[in-house]
């Protein structure tokens, strides 16, 4: 069998595949962060908590009302998105225009409160959620066994990422959004309700995180602390891609998934650090990020 650095090519192909799958989660999460930062200039440290809420919501809606996976995949982001709009309206709006550090601290505080309250109620061992029946099992690709659900994750994440990019970069609504954040007074003058637009944008960014959470529910341990670990990685992804760059966040997310996947084969101990290493190198060479506009 052909080998690269002592590792069979078949194993590497498998890891490449898994890297893309993990990258899909990174892409979804960093996309939401990039939308919120790019358009609203809010550093949303509650993003991990929103991801967690999406997953918790999916599980709890099933336990309490028997709501199935497909409905939850739509409903959980909507519920959490509405919650995000409420947060924006009552809290974030009050510090608009202040230094970035205020939004960072406020959202971080919100994240800690959400995590603490839910831990008190549900504990940390994780809630049980079964795989939807249609996704049980998988296919043999020759080089690896690919569970059906993981294949679905790639498809779902890519469709949502592309849709978001299209919405913001190519539609009229997207152009209002971009213009509204560029010069809100002028846009108000044109008769566009900018505050509403901002609420909706924050809600949409949060929805993306909750969607990733709902997508994660059948394969990862769902608990109130699940968001805190992933948040820092996702921030690193956004920084590498270039703060605020939407396409950059998606492509970097996928790339970092693959980089991390290969590190898990060649030097597993370093797999938690490798993304931060890339971040350091990128910041040294290209401080605005791989896809960011040169300042």
């Amino acid at each position, binding site marked *: 069998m052909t080998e690269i650095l002592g590792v069979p090519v078949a194993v590497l192909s498998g890891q490449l595949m898994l890297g893309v799958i993990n990258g899909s989660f990174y892409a979804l999460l960093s996309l939401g962060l990039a939308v919120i930062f790019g358009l609203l200039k809010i550093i949303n440290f509650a993003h991990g908590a929103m991801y967690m809420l999406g997953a918790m919501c999916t599980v709890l809606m099933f336990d309490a009302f028997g709501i199935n996976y497909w409905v939850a995949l739509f409903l959980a982001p909507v519920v959490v998105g509405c919650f995000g709009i409420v947060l924006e309206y009552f809290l974030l709006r009050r510090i608009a225009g202040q230094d970035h550090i205020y939004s960072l601290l406020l959202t971080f505080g919100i994240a800690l409160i959400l995590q603490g309250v839910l831990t008190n109620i549900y504990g940390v*061992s994780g809630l049980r959620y079964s795989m939807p029946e249609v996704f049980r099992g998988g296919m043999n690709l020759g080089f690896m066994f690919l569970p059906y659900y993981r294949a679905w994750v790639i498809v779902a994440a890519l469709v949502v990422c592309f849709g978001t990019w299209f919405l913001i970069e190519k539609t009229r609504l997207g152009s209002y959004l971009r213009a509204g954040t560029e010069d809100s007074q002028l846009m108000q003058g044109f008769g566009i309700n900018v505050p509403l637009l901002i609420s909706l944008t924050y809600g949409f960014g949060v929805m993306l995180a909750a969607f990733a959470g709902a997508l994660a529910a059948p394969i*990862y341990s769902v608990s109130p602390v699940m968001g805190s670990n992933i948040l820092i990685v996702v921030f690193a992804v956004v920084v590498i891609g270039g703060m605020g760059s939407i396409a950059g966040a998606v492509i970097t997310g996928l790339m970092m998934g693959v980089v991390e996947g290969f590190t898990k084969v060649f030097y597993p101990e370093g797999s938690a650090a490798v993304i931060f290493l890339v971040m350091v190198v990128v910041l040294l060479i290209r401080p605005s990020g791989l896809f960011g506009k040169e300042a």
Partner: protein
Amino acid sequence: MTITKKLLTSAVASALLVGSAQAEISDNTVKIGYLADMSGTYRDLAGPNGQTALEMAIADFGGKVNGAKIEVVSADDRNSPDSASSTARRWVENENVDLIAGLVASSVTIAVSNILEESGKLGIVSGSAASSITNEHCTPNHIHYVYDTYPLANGTASAVVKEGGKTWFILTADYAFGHALEGDVTRVVEENGGEVIQTVRHPFPTSDFSSFILQAQSSGADVVALANAGADTTNAITTAGEFGLTQSGQTLAALLLFLTDVHALGAQSAQGIQLTTGWYWDMNDETRAWSDRFMEKTGVRPTMVHAGIYSSTIQYLNAVKATGSDDAQTVRKQMMDTPINDMFAKNGYIRKDGRMVHDMYLAEVKTPEESESEWDLYDIVRTIPGEEAYRPLSESKCKLVTQN
């Protein structure tokens, strides 16, 4: 005359001194400090419900010992040895705490046991795993009550090798506890004629295990062993199920698994996994009766740690009652002299290194068909006698053993 007078005074004085050390409860209060992870990774296996178990023990004991009242204080150690040390120091030095109970993360326990030794107070460790706590880190001031990594490896690993699992792939959490467990397992596997063909150390914590599971599959090992704990273990098991690890003929062995972890996984994902435990709620009428009372208060079934906290607190209070003292060495000696026979352990005894030796159990997780209720999860397949389960004193590096 003067000589007799002097003699008499010193005799009276020493009698008073001895009396105060042996037969008096300081400030007429027995104060117990419960120190545990109340909000992090290890919250569910001990945490607030452990404090409930402690309070149940005090209530069952009658709330008073020899007329002295029993008080409880508690704190969250946040799995941080620094934070735990400052709490422990404040308790024993300024707040007259006589016993520190709970003690979960091994690093916390090792830090706190040093403070106990300096201050001459007593600690009973119920949650920690590292066997070094009564080996190189032993002190005359603490007791390790429920389990440790030695029987975990002994119970699960030797059973799996004997069933034909000759080649092993070990997936280890990359920190002190994981390394210790990996070492203990490797020793047991090799002693039983097996071979460890690959070990992979994963960062702590890791949420996505698919890459490691794929490596485990391509290693072709008979057994894939998990030397990690908590969410890392449950995540790895879920992913192994998703990727069909056991369907392709490999055996999955989780080396440290608590009832709360198995409950989180559910019988569907966890079925067939073998694990070693110090206690299980559904073993006999006694354990069931206590667990029912525990569940009434907490809404969940107790882990071995919860049961151990209850049992050890009763043992401690019995020793205080019998000696009429809350002095650490007096109580510890009395506890060592008293065999433990209750719902937690039969014929358990505390060795001079502080290890409580009792039977351990090899359990297998039931299938969804066998499991009759949410918490009906284990089949006890073998009882491992205490003498066989724990590290023998002849191999001990504990200073209390080697000095004598």
